[in-house]
């Protein structure tokens, strides 16, 4: 018989108790997986929107949220005229609501925006939209949940818009959104002459630093960041990420306490048995290892269950029309690994006291009461 079998049998003998301990870890894993998936998924999509066909983003300095950023029209025009710049596409973000759908992201775009050019036109065409008078485009998912097709009138906010086309992009977030012409969006959101950001494509990648410096020296209120830097420094993303990790870690703390409790109970009920294996030659470190390995096994089972449950929750969330496009399952192996490691570490930490307690058991005392 191998040591690992003893570990397994020790848990198996008290399966209900072990299951409860495992469940704590499973909930932690499931919580962390779903929260991270939602948050990182949303961030990821947002990032993609921002980075489509661009390398730099220009936005208002020190703004806490891109929805509050303003870049004036005349500055957009000047930036577009810079030598290094190949393309400058202003985007105005806003939140609109429709009956039953309180939060729909709205994008105000110029006709020439590459996002539209590269999109899959399911209904209508870029040409038709350009010619339409204040027509809107719906992302494919938005069309689904608003149950609208080309030519329909859709109530948005206090107005009503005619649908000029339906597009699908590679990006789920955009597909859940509504697209207005930049000028219509400025009017609708009452932000005349501004955009939230300008997505910049440079003629030559090597001009990056020069471009960035030019923007900050010419415009007091603006800054330019490379996409990657932006993702790391944008405070909303940071807050979201930190919050989701914090929620996950709290869930894990509870899970770890569950393991501590389960293992302590297990040790208490096995004092005599632990004394016996000591008498049979188990050293104190071996006894401690046994207890810790039991906790590790609990965590392994919990993690496996947690991943399955977490994926189930995500599947469920994804099927809710209200959340369409806002959720994307985390696929990064690093996040999975981080969750896995967190689960194991929490479990091991939770088993330290029980293991120490088990190592302290005095066989003579424990065996005295026959």
């Amino acid at each position, binding site marked *: *018989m*191998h*040591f690992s*079998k*003893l570990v397994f*049998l020790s848990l*198996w*003998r008290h399966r209900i108790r072990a299951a409860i301990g495992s469940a704590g870890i499973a909930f932690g894993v499931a919580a962390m997986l779903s929260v991270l998936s939602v948050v990182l998924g949303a961030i990821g999509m947002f990032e993609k929107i921002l980075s489509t066909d661009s390398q730099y983003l220009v936005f208002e300095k020190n703004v806490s949220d891109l929805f509050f950023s303003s870049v004036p029209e005349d500055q957009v025009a000047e930036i577009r005229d810079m030598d290094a710049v190949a393309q400058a596409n202003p985007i105005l973000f806003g939140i609109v609501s429709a009956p039953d759908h309180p939060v729909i992201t709205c994008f105000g775009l110029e006709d020439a925006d590459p996002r539209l050019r590269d999109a899959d036109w399911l209904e209508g065409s870029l040409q038709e939209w350009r010619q339409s008078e204040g027509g809107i485009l719906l992302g494919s998912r938005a069309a689904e949940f608003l149950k609208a097709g080309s030519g329909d009138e859709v109530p948005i906010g206090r107005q009503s818009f005619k649908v000029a086309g339906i597009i699908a992009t590679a990006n789920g977030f955009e597909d859940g959104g509504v697209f207005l012409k930049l000028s219509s969006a400025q009017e609708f959101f009452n932000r005349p002459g501004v955009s939230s950001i300008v997505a910049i494509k440079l003629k030559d990648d090597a001009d990056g630093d020069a471009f960035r410096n030019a923007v900050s020296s010419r415009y007091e209120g603006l800054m330019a960041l490379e996409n990657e830097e932006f993702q790391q420094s944008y405070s909303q993303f940071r807050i979201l990420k930190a919050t989701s990790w914090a929620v996950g870690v709290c869930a894990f703390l509870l899970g770890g306490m569950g393991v501590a409790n389960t293992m302590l109970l297990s040790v208490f009920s096995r004092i*005599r*048995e632990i004394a*016996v*294996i*000591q*008498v*049979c*030659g*188990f*050293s104190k470190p*071996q006894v401690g290892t046994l207890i810790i390995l039991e906790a590790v096994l609990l965590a392994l089972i919990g993690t496996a269950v947690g991943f399955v449950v977490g994926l189930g929750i995500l599947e469920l969330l994804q099927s809710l029309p209200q959340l369409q496009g806002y959720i994307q399952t985390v696929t990064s192996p690093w996040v999975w690994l981080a969750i896995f490691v967190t689960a194991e570490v929490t479990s091991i930490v939770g088993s330290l006291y029980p293991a120490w307690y088990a190592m302290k058991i*005095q*066989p*003579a005392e424990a*065996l*005295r009461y*026959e």
Partner: protein
Amino acid sequence: MSNVLSFGTAAPEQILGEKEVIRVDGVWKSFDEGRIQVLSDVSFNVNQGEVIALWGSSGSGKSTLLHLLGGLDAADEGSVSVCGLDPAVEKNRLRLRREYIGFIFQLHNLLPDLTMRENCWIPAMASRLARQEVDQRFEELTSWLKVEHRRDRRIRELSGGERQRTAICRALMHRPKLVLADEPTGSLDEQNGEQVFKLLYELAKREQVTVVMATHERRFAERCDRHILLRDGHVDCRD
């Protein structure tokens, strides 16, 4: 007063008299800060291959004395030497339990949800013995103890006699020099007690194992090679 002998570099077996396995010298042991005096100036020797009864009524200190021999507790005064090692020294304990001593208790103290085979694997697991050797030893002992048909049964499915035979098997798995048995027949009926005693005695003789067996029953004490009578904390050695 720890035994100075145990600090030597010579092989421990060579330090005691040639055939001596246990030497207890002027041992005192009390509990509750001296309020319960259990052993008073106890001295005796046990030689290689002897089966000794530690005979005394309940509460006479038999278990306490076995615990001192097995390194489960330490004497207040006096010296104990088992296979040349002082069991009161922490680092000797593990060595004694893994190499020299096997324990049998009144209650079998087996893990009830494990099988007979798994229980007997525990000492081997602790000492990381080779698999093949352990399996072979297990087959041999269980055949000898006439429980070969129960090898893969869980302990909770076994009778009292079978459990106690499993305990004997576990104690002998690692080929100890010395077996400390604390009332091994104490929880059995007369017939089963008789059988277990006989098996233990014969096995000890066959394998040249030294046995110290605590018992309160005259019928077993008198059939051992020698008995040590424990009374009022003192010993009285008889043949």
